[in-house]
């Protein structure tokens, strides 16, 4: 076990500070509603700096760094245990970037701005907390904490059908969480701990299943299903995704940026941090049905996007498709009997898939958030229009807008040279040898996504300009200056993925060494 406080780089509890910061910002924003946007921008900017500091201080060998460990409520197995490795730190950086983008995108919140930005910052605190917590209850607290602000953001600032969408979102996610909580309750009752690393160690040497069977019965597979349910809803995995298109479409676009850019990553993160280490054996046993669902997520997600007429729903389903590749990689690498003793070729494929999954999480977060940002700008310019057929020929009046959004769209399509490609390439490199059938069916997703995205470009940017859009305003300097770093990041990560992978790969190697399937 990591010694307490050993990893607090330079003696400063960076991770606690990171989580407290947005809460302070939220309190301030609620108090001074008038300057809430400024406060939120400032807080998220500092948050990004903190996250980058955390990223720089990662241990080079891929283990948990910046660990903070204190007693909290031992009677219920709750400890204050924080730490990040490459996976957690990358998610921290992603959440800070996406929240910053979202705050920047929310230009005109006329209705209760203090509450709005306060809720956004609370959501960020939830994200930070859940990406750093290493104890189940602590983690669960933040996992649920992020849900409440998201619910109210949809409910209060959403589109015409926001009520049902928000309710559906909340109920669905809470139902998943309940399954997750019950599974961990059972585990706590059997083992007396909720610490992820301890549970992972028990899972690796087989004592976890033994204890659970002794205390409760042969319910381990059910507990695994319960845990998976929580994550499957959040990511989402087909068929647990029906809340998503409504929620994404009805949420105000800056909130959708948060939902798809950062919150959907909580589910994938949970699979990697919690489900695979603790329920690896059970997941490996269910690998085939899970792979079928993952492939369905990839293919049906893309295909459903092709049927949508609302741009937000198009990108919502496209997000389902992109996160489907993450699920594909995760379930494919859970190959029974692999582990430290696995042949090197399998290990190499698992490493490819896992690196790809985590890179894809980051890339999708950036790209999807950027796409919804562009939609927010389109809605702002047109009084809320967002239909696929509402536009046309926009390249003529708004060439910079078309060019930059074009880059983001091609990044989403997976064009080499932009960030989307590397993650998807690595996932397919990893999945093909581990399950060639799933890889072969899933490439169909790449094709359909291309068709969907090129259709969007065709309908929105090409063709003759309708009379009403002749004066469609192009991006003004403040807008493209805000977007430029994001687009730059897409290019940078597309050309130099080693920037992220150099810190990620040790973590991946370390994780794979400890997982048992």
């Amino acid at each position: 076990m990591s010694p307490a406080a050993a990893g607090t780089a330079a003696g400063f509890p960076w991770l606690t500070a990171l989580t407290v910061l947005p809460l302070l910002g939220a309190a301030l924003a609620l108090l001074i509603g008038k300057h809430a946007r400024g406060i939120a921008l400032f807080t998220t900017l500092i948050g990004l700096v903190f996250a980058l500091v955390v990223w720089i201080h990662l241990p080079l060998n891929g283990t948990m760094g910046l660990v903070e460990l204190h007693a909290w409520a031992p009677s219920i197995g709750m400890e204050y245990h924080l730490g990040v490795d490459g996976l957690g730190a990358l998610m921290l950086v992603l959440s800070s970037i996406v929240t910053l983008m979202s705050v920047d995108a929310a230009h005109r919140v006329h209705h209760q701005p203090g509450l709005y930005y306060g809720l956004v910052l609370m959501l960020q605190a939830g994200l930070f907390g859940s990406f750093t917590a290493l104890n189940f209850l602590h983690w669960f607290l933040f996992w649920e904490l992020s849900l409440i602000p998201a619910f109210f953001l949809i409910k209060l600032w959403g589109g015409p059908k926001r009520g049902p969408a928000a309710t559906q979102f909340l109920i669905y996610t809470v139902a998943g969480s309940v399954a997750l909580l019950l599974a961990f309750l059972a585990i706590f009752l059997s083992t007396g701990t909720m610490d992820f690393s301890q549970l992972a160690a028990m899972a690796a040497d087989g004592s976890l299943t033994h204890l659970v069977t002794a205390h409760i019965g042969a319910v381990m597979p059910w507990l695994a299903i319960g845990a998976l349910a929580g994550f499957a809803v959040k990511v989402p995995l087909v068929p647990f995704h029906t809340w998503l298109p409504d929620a994404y479409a009805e949420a105000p676009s800056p909130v959708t940026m948060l939902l798809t850019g950062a919150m959907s990553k909580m589910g994938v993160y949970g699979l990697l941090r919690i489900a695979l280490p603790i329920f690896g054996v059970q997941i490996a046993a269910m690998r085939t049905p899970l792979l079928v669902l993952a492939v369905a997520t990839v293919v049906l997600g893309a295909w459903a996007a092709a049927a949508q007429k609302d741009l937000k729903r198009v990108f919502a389903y496209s997000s389902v498709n992109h996160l489907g590749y993450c699920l594909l990689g995760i379930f494919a690498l859970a190959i029974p009997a692999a582990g430290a003793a696995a042949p090197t070729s399998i290990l190499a494929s698992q490493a490819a898939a896992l690196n790809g999954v985590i890179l894809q999480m980051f890339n999708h977060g950036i790209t999807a958030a950027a796409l919804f940002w562009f939609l927010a700008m389109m809605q702002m310019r047109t009084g809320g229009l967002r239909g696929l057929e509402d536009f046309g020929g926009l390249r003529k009046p708004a060439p910079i807008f078309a060019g930059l959004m074009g880059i983001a769209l091609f990044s989403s399509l997976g064009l080499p040279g932009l960030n989307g490609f590397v993650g998807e390439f690595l996932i397919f490199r990893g999945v093909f040898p581990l399950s060639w059938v799933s890889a072969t069916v899933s490439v169909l997703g790449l094709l359909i996504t291309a068709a969907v995205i090129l259709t969007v470009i065709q309908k929105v940017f090409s063709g003759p300009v309708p009379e009403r859009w002749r004066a469609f305003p192009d991006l003004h300097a403040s807008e493209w200056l805000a977007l430029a770093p994001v687009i730059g990041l897409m290019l940078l990560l597309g050309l130099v993925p080693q920037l992220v992978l150099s810190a990620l790969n040790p973590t991946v190697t370390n994780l794979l060494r400890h997982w048992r399937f």
Partner: protein
Amino acid sequence: MIEQAAAFTPQLGAAPVTRILWLVPALPVVASGIVALLKQPRRKPAAALAIASLSLSLLLSLFAFGHVLAGWTNHLAVRETVNFTWFTFGATGVDLGWVLDPLSAIMMVMVSFVGLLIFIYSVGYMEHDENFTRFFCFLSLFAGAMLGVVIANSLLLLFMCWELVGLTSYLLIGFWYQKPSAAAAAKKAFITTRVGDIFFLLGIVWLFAQTGTLLFYNHEAGCLEPLALGGLLAQHAAFGLTAAGAIGLLIFCGAVGKSGQLPLHVWLPDAMEGPTPVSALIHAATMVAAGVYLIARVYPLMSAGVPLIHTAEATGTTAALVVVTWVGAATAVFAALIAIAQNDIKRILAYSTVSQLGYMMAGLGLGGVAVGMFHLITHAFFKALLFLGAGSVIHGSHEEQDIRKMGGLKVDMPFTFITYAIGMLALCGFPIFFSGFWSKDGILEAAHTGAIKGPYYLLVFGALLTAFYMTRQVCYVFFGYWRGHQDAHESPRVMLWPLAILAFFAMALGLIGTPAWPWFRSFLEDHAAPFSLHGFAEPGLVLLMTMSSCIVLFGLWLGWKLYGSKSPKPEAPDVLEKAAPHLWAGLRDRLYVDEFYGVTVIAFYFWWARVTDWMDRRLWGGIVRLVVRITSLWAHLNRLFDVRAVDGSFDKACEEISTGGGLLSRVESGRVQSYLRILAIAVVALAAVLFWSSMP
């Protein structure tokens, strides 16, 4: 038999020119980036920058070519690589790199040279276009990406550049994006080629997983080198293929898409919506040839298991190469048939390109790298010439593209006519004086000596059709009398110079690949090429050449006989249409391939999209609603009994929240609370069960 010289000594290490070879693609890409940032009205700097950067690339390519040539004259097999690690996963590095060998050297020179001529031509052709700078931005990006495909020493780098080439092709086909047809054609091109590319990607990841590298050559550790190939041959995939064969076929799928082979040829004719210089550069000379180049590059993989030197005893082939051959030969005839009944000057050339690409593929499959690549190089010159000539005709006849509304242009546009005729004769394979004759005969000869004769007959028939449809086109355009509205005029000089240069090469290039002096083959295959008329003495060769010449002459004669200077009225039916109306209609409508895809693949795509959407709304959504109903029913039943304590306190808590913030009052009719209440009950109940069962 050609005397096989002793194998050349391999050349190791990288010369200075190899080390800076990355500049060849990088220069145009950088130029493109700068041009992108220029304001639209700055035309001259944009064109100057693009042309200057590509000139430098050409210069560098020529140096590199000279380096390889110097090695060749000293009997050294030059294959210099520079590799580097792009990123690592696990313990595996993903390596990229570039290679200088005869194949990349020749291709590099061709692409930059033809590209440069077309850049210069475009200055005239696009003069009045409002998006002139953007055009040069895209063209430069294309040139960079294409040169990247050429020098790549890694299948991954090749694929990345390949996709970028696809992107620029998309942008340039849709250059006049306000035309809905152009936007649709661009989308169709990208998606159709991507159909091939997804299989290509599978081939790449499979190869990577099997061999652990995607570098072609890396001091005996590359994926095209014997060690890796041996491993792939030992592995058996499905359908009696080795892993090498299966991976080869997957990669070939990519080539089928890019090079417009059956059944993915449908995008190429539509791609003619782009500006004509784009058709010449991308959709005739270079990009569409990338598929052929790809197969030439991975030829060791495609032919793995076959002895390298063909002898009379062992002219073995592989399943992958047989597929390549048949697809190529079938495409050659199929597209040539359709070309007969087209009336758009560029579409005829587009189908002709598809057909000629089929010849190249068949040449690769039957005769190896040198045969296919020779036709690629000669075709690049004469087809670029034809397209630029067509551009000149279109420009001169006021944007008219229908050959039935042209005629008699040999008088109005004499220079264009002469160069066009040279290109046309080269394409038809007119004997002795035209490069197309020698390169096409190389393919026919290889087909003739092959074990299976089917492709040979197809290709000979294709040669007849080619001579025929080109004669028809030239008769309609240049002979007879003018049927257009405004008078035609000759094009400006800046457009004619490139025509002259290309015409020269359309004739002269044949000299480097005659049986008497097969320099091209020996250069690519690393052996010496002495000049000797004995090359013609191979049994049957002269007979074959005579026969193919007769076929070409017959095609020309037939075309002249039927069309000549007759200049029928534009609305009058074609002579062949009168003879066989149904057949003609079929050919004119492109043998209904697009329609077939429309009612099958595309219809299925939209139908299934709707089904998926329906499943989401009704099926999955319905199940969710059902579960909610059942849960709430169960909860109500529970309430009838006894959970009042929990229920009451939860209600109270909810009330506190709702009255406290004034926020939850917006939540309609407490539905959320009631759902949460149900959940809370469920949690408590299940927790109780858990506690109870965990009691010792």
